[in-house]
């Protein structure tokens, strides 16, 4: 055996790996599980949250503060894109639409993501503030949803929860570093938390759909996550010595994403995402 034959990194067995299912949860309920109208709508909400966020994080790649962070944000974006694909795939089973039909051929009023996900990247502190709040929320959500009575949702949630756990950790590490770093980073982190906070409330709004689904054990009532969310957020922000906005400056955005009402940011985001696909109706890629 010559020098050149020795693999200095040990065997990487990827090529021989049995490839995991591309869509988490597909097959969890047996082949061809079809979502009911309610479940499809619910999966659409979760899927749109994940896709819009993945789209935003994708914009950071080749623009991050350090190369290691390009890789980290790329991993997080890829995780979220994976969640979105699984959820949209499932949502589409109700109407016979594919993940791409749903991603590329719906207009703004048909999108169901909450507003926080469509808020722009801003500077790195704003991206981190958004990541911190949503990953904390998603971790609690997927944790509970992994025992959903709907086997497909439960399987998607179980996989997603493990990945979101890392997203939460990543964001927490950066909140602490930016808040406890230089004067400039602290100022930016405080601004970012204040700017993002108004959009947190909408994540915990219940409505008829989730109440209906939650009573069957299919969905998680968003309001039931609030206490745990606040506890973690308070803990991290206390360590970061950042106070949440209170009193008259404490805006709370009305929200409305679940009903298809959006802020000014979603339109341009979708226009960019969908432009090529819509230039070639019916084409396959």
């Amino acid at each position, binding site marked *: 055996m010559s020098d050149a034959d020795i693999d200095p*990194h040990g*065997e990487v067995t990827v090529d021989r790996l049995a490839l995991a299912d591309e869509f988490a949860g597909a097959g969890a309920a047996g082949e061809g599980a079809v979502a009911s109208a309610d479940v499809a709508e619910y999966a659409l909400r979760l899927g749109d949250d994940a896709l819009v966020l993945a789209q935003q994080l994708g914009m950071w790649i080749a623009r991050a503060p350090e190369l*290691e962070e390009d890789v980290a944000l790329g991993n997080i974006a890829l995780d979220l894109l994976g969640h979105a694909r699984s959820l949209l795939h499932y949502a589409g089973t109700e109407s016979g639409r594919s993940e791409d039909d749903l991603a590329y051929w719906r207009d703004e009023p048909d999108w169901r993501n909450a507003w926080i996900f469509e808020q722009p990247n801003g500077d790195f502190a704003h991206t981190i503030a958004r990541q911190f709040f949503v990953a904390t929320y998603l971790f609690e959500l997927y944790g509970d949803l992994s025992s959903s009575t709907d086997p497909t949702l439960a399987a998607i949630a179980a996989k997603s929860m493990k990945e979101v756990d890392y997203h939460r950790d990543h964001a927490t590490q950066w909140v602490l570093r930016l808040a406890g770093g230089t004067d400039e980073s602290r100022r930016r982190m405080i601004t970012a938390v204040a700017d993002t906070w108004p959009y947190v409330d909408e994540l915990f709004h219940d409505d008829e759909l989730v109440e209906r689904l939650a009573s069957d054990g299919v969905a998680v009532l968003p309001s039931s996550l609030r206490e745990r969310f606040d506890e973690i957020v308070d803990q991290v922000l206390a360590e970061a010595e950042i106070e949440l906005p209170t009193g008259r400056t404490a805006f709370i955005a009305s929200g409305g994403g679940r009903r298809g009402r959006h802020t000014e940011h979603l339109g341009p985001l979708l226009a960019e995402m969908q432009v090529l696909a819509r230039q070639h109706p019916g084409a396959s890629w």
Partner: protein
Amino acid sequence: MMSTPGETGTESWPLWEVFVRANRGLSHVHVGSLHAPDSDMAVRNARDLYTRRNEGVSIWVVPADAITTSDPDAKGAYFESPAGKNYRHAVYYTKSEGVKHL
């Protein structure tokens, strides 16, 4: 005393050496290095950079300047001693050939 090559002590994010255990039952093996501001971030960066394809189940990160290496200039002499001590190897003992369970 020498740290690993590459560490200069001048960079604001220092250099870390990364070791990955590919699977249970195996040693951690050096896979490369990276930059990180501190150990918490170093281990996370290592996860993102060196285990994107299921390459590991455990990671060590070590500040490059914390590693002490043997004196590189003396490498020939330093590792001369084992040469000639063939009696440390089983193949040296030929008379027992053919005897079972030895």
